[in-house]
């Protein structure tokens, strides 16, 4: 689903993308990605793909866990410890992690996944767990994919593309 330049992912109970790799550690792809958490939201930019992302709900809390190597299962386990977490909500966490992998915002690491001791590592909003949301914006992709010098129209200039 793509609407007006951004995509809201619908979280379906899909199979884990990386079968058999749920114990492998993942970490933020810092070579290609930069991010900042502002209160309960986060802004993430992948300057290789030209996409940028807004996270909300419990998304930033999940994102923060990947600052150090951690497996998807360990992330799920940490949220499972929170009071009142349902199976559906745990599926939402897993789907969010899958989305991070699809967008190459987190990458597999050779580092052995760390053992997170307790749910105290997760910062969840006062209202408790909220569906993690990842808004994907691709409206500026052309600025990266489009070489402003060579692909720009010679008469009108960047960002108008060169006519065939």
């Amino acid at each position, binding site marked *: 689903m793509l609407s007006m330049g951004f995509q809201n992912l619908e979280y379906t109970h899909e199979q884990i993308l990386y079968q058999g790799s749920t114990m492998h550690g993942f970490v933020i792809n810092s070579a290609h990605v930069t991010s*900042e958490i*502002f*209160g309960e*939201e986060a*802004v993430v*930019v992948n300057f290789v793909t*030209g996409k940028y992302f*807004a996270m909300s709900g419990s998304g930033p809390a999940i994102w923060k866990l990947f600052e150090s190597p951690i497996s998807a299962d360990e992330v799920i386990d940490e949220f499972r410890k929170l009071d009142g977490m349902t199976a559906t909500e745990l599926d939402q966490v897993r789907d969010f992690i899958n989305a991070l992998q699809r967008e190459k915002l987190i990458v597999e690491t050779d580092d052995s996944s760390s053992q997170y001791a307790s749910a105290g590592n997760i910062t969840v909003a006062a209202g408790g767990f909220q569906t993690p949301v990842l808004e994907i914006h691709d409206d500026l992709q052309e*600025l990266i994919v489009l070489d402003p010098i060579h692909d720009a129209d010679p008469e*009108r200039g960047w960002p108008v593309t060169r006519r065939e």
Partner: protein
Amino acid sequence: MNRGRVFDPAVFSSIVNHVNGDMSQDINRFITDSIEYARDAWREFGGEERYYCFGPVTLCVRHIGAALVDTVSPAIRHAMVSKQSSVNGTVYALDAKSLHLRRPPETWPFSTNTYQEHQRIYWDTESGLALNSDESRGIWQLFNLHNCDGLYWVDDETTLPSWEAGSPLRIFLHWLTWNNNCQLIHAAGLEWQGRGILLTGPGGSGKSTTTAAAVGAGWNMVGDDFVLVSDGCKPVAHCIYDTIKLTRESLGKLPNIADSAINAPVDAVEKFRVHLSDRYRQRLVGKIAIDTLFTLNIAGAHKTCILPASKASVMAALAPTTMFMLKMGMKESFHKMTGLVNQMQCYSVQMSTDPCEVAASMARFVENPET
């Protein structure tokens, strides 16, 4: 001067064939030798030396043989100052054809190791050397971050595209400021009754139209497209360019400014350019202290509405477009903008269809933000 040094085709060929698995060494040598070549040309030919002050950044531009003055100066003439004993950087402007000097390479002379074969951006913070090229139009920009010398090297000034004069030397300003407390930002800067704001928004959101309407209504301006923001206890936005770029449709809504356009666009896509220093000189100011960020959204409502916005939403409107337009030093730019956004009050402007009404609403809001 040794005009044949380095730039003989045979020498280029040897560089290409001598890649030796280390393209960086070849490009680095090319950058340092090219800038040295320009220094030699300046010593031999002289030309026009001009100084520009953009807030905390002072730039010396040495037009070798007076080349490229007509391209570089119009959009930044308001920032020209008398000779300075100390500058932050020096850019040599060289037009090969007018002086019968060595031309910049017609084709990319180095191997490419990127998936985009046409990628022509080189940025090596370790060696302190940077390059941005458009060999198809004969435009090369080179920079040495260690001594802050640069070269704006063109094959023939008379064939430069018209939009090259819209924001001259921008990449040199970015290179000069990437590792200090200043940041080029893609935003408009306006001031009303001593209160400074930055306007940001996606392409087509009406930023330039709103800026033009605001200036017509009495706002002061420091920039329509890019401003230089310096950090401090209160951030300051400095003026770089005095141009506003407007579509035909926008110009039609602003009759007071319509006859000030300096170009005649060839089609509906190309924008009109207006030099504010021609028409509204008193409205163009050198700097403004800023404390508010507005993101513009085309709501199409009858009346403009200004609402509090989250810092994350404003950061998403501001940072990616700036980063992707500047292309180099993206992480540094992102983190500087994070610091800026955290200091600002953030609002979303749900705009009506009338840019003059939008400007008036913004003025009322700035005067009485609590209402």
